[in-house]
């Protein structure tokens, strides 16, 4: 006899609500959005003060398993934090560190690696991963080549958080990864919203540790990356919609608020529809993932949908704000930039659409009437 009831809810659990509110409060109190402006001209650094506070709250390394000092936070909680970071446009390396820690948590770590991970959890070190997916093709990006003596060589281009990371989890050979803390050259690359980017060059670098045969873990880490950047987009969208609606209600032209004109109302309504659905897709993918389902396609759908929605939202936000929102005094430009960067992280829309389409077209079992997911 089935005693389990169906679950349908759009409410956050009490625990999740508390997490969300406390992160939101912290970001507001610490002036995260204001601090983010400092890095518009030069993003070789990040909001270290905020990062320390997030570490003190147990957030910076929450993704790590307990053995590495974290709390093995479920994906739904990680995504919620990313959403809040998106609302404030916070300049901290949460997403990349989270996926690096999750990946390390799946592997057998030496004590040196474990110490490093714990330092990252404590906010004293930053660890990133050079595992970004190509946006357009299914080509395999360059991986480091191991020599007989275990030293690694190669070039890793446009590594997210590469400019500030103390340690990099890098792809090696066909299905391995290594963690490196030294022996590589770092070249910062300024970009539109791809945070703290660097080209890394390894010429015989000795890794702290090397693993092979971990293909599935790598893919899952990339899926988490896509989910968390989608969650960032979702949070940024929330801010954009709220801020733009407020502006439209206050800005008077032709004797009335511009938000009373249908053209403006329709733009905002369209934003609201797309961002609401996108938010739900992220949370759905995260909660399904936590329940143990394979959510590769759900994540692909959530990311591609939100990236598309956010192109619309960020450009229309600028359109509605006009000149007021285009000067650097106004924070809008930060969100536009970050949204472009978030789209370029872990697969742009067409790539994800292709992946989903391929999966559906390949299936030979006709599963009728799957309501959602599938």
């Amino acid at each position: 006899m089935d005693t389990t009831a169906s679950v349908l809810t759009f409410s956050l659990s009490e625990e999740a609500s508390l997490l969300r509110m406390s992160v939101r409060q912290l970001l507001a109190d610490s002036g995260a959005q204001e601090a983010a402006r400092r890095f518009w001209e030069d993003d070789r650094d990040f909001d270290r003060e905020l990062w320390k506070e997030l570490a003190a709250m147990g957030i910076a390394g929450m993704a790590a398993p307990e053995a590495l000092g974290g709390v093995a936070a479920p994906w739904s909680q990680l995504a919620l934090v990313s959403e809040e970071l998106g609302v404030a446009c916070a300049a901290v390396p949460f997403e990349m560190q989270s996926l690096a820690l999750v990946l390390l948590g799946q592997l057998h770590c030496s004590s040196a690696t474990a110490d490093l991970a714990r330092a990252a959890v404590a906010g004293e070190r930053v660890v990133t991963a050079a595992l970004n997916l190509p946006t357009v093709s299914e080509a395999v990006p360059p991986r480091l080549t191991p020599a007989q003596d275990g030293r690694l060589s190669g070039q890793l281009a446009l590594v997210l958080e590469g400019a500030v990371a103390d340690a990099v989890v890098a792809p090696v050979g066909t299905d391995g990864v290594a963690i490196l803390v030294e022996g590589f050259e770092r070249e910062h690359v300024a970009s539109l919203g791809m945070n703290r980017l660097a080209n890394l060059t390894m010429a015989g670098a000795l890794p702290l540790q090397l693993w092979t045969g971990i293909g599935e873990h790598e893919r899952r880490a990339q899926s988490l990356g896509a989910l968390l950047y989608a969650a960032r987009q979702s949070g940024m969208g929330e801010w954009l919609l709220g801020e733009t609606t407020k502006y439209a209600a206050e800005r008077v032209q032709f004797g009335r608020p511009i938000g009373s004109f249908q053209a403006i109302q329709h733009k905002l309504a369209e934003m609201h529809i797309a961002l609401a659905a996108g938010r739900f897709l992220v949370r759905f993918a995260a909660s399904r993932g936590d329940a143990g389902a394979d959510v590769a396609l759900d994540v692909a759908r959530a990311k591609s949908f939100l990236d598309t929605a956010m192109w619309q939202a960020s450009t229309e936000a600028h359109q509605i704000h006009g000149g007021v929102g285009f000067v650097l005094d106004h924070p809008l430009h930060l969100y536009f930039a970050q949204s472009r960067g978030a789209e370029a992280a872990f697969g742009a829309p067409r790539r994800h659409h292709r992946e989903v389409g391929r999966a559906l077209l390949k299936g030979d079992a006709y599963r009728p009437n799957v309501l959602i997911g599938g």
Partner: protein
Amino acid sequence: MQFQLSEQHQRFQDEVREFVRQEWSETGLGGVAGAGEDDDSEHEQVFKRKLAERGWLGIAIPEEYGGAGKRPLEQFLFVEEVTYWGAPHSYIGVGFVAPTLIRFGDEEQKRRFVPPLVRGEIEFCLGYSEADAGSDLAALQTRVVPDGDDLVISGTKMYTTNAHRVEYCWLAGRTDPSAPKHKGISLVIVPLDAPGVSIRPLHTAGGERTNQVFFDDVRVPKANLVGEMNRGWYYLAVALDFERFNGFPLGAARRMFDELVAYTRTAEQDGVALAGLDWVQETIGTLSARLNAAMTLKLQTVWMAERGEIPNTEASMLKVMASDLAQEVARAAATILGPQALVKAGQPGAVARGRFERALRGTVLQRFAGGSNEIMKNIIAQRGLGLPRD
């Protein structure tokens, strides 16, 4: 957002599917929202009676009015299953009229109309739009004049779909021409076999028939007035919320998408396998994401209903996305399949029984019917985002 069906609810879905397969199968090309072909009419009636016998026609109507008293979630599962397979249900009578009547009608009216609706013995059409009152519905002019124990109705309603096949019209008329337009409207239930009612068919590009209905001094008892005189606009607003919440199931669009995927899997054009083409994969993937997105909006309205709320902004958001999507799926089929998608049902080389051809025409309606998407966006901006009226 979390959504997981219990085994019991999954079995319910299977049960409905089996039932539809056995009792309806697929005649014609039903599945595009609205009235089916006229020649389906008898088969539809028989099917609806069978649904009623199973207790499914009025699945979420309270038991005291003859319904099964189930939750909005069960109603949602039932409607999504039934519309997926192109089978009919009572989407107007049970979907919008009954819940509004239960809220605002008197006990006698509820007992007179709801149980027969639930049994499949009667059905309603909506007497809202007129030639000069579509999006500006409050501008309606059909007169409802009290005369002794009766109300006398004169005027003309437009796009009264199904008037030719149902027993009653759920009519919005003007009872006080001197009041501001929203404050002089009343809701009346009008039997369509009353003297003075005449119906003129209007055939549409989408293939379904609608009607113009003339009311020539039609008398109905005062007992057919729903709620208070001149308060009709407020009841109508609730009925419209139900229409947006219940009237745009995703089943038909999802079925069309699944058919497109199934067909494309093995389709070749001039020796090229369509499923191997990048842009075809992307088109399918884009639609998959959008269908899932629309379903989250639908589920939100179901969740709200489960909490006893009537979705307003959320129902409007759903309506916009669902109607846009239905057209997008049809369009995608046309772009992927090319000329084959345009071949009509029964013609040489028709694919998926001409489903896509018919959908290309039929889905045009959805973006302006049931509240045009432009009006929906006004509601979303004004009610949802708090922006001032134009």
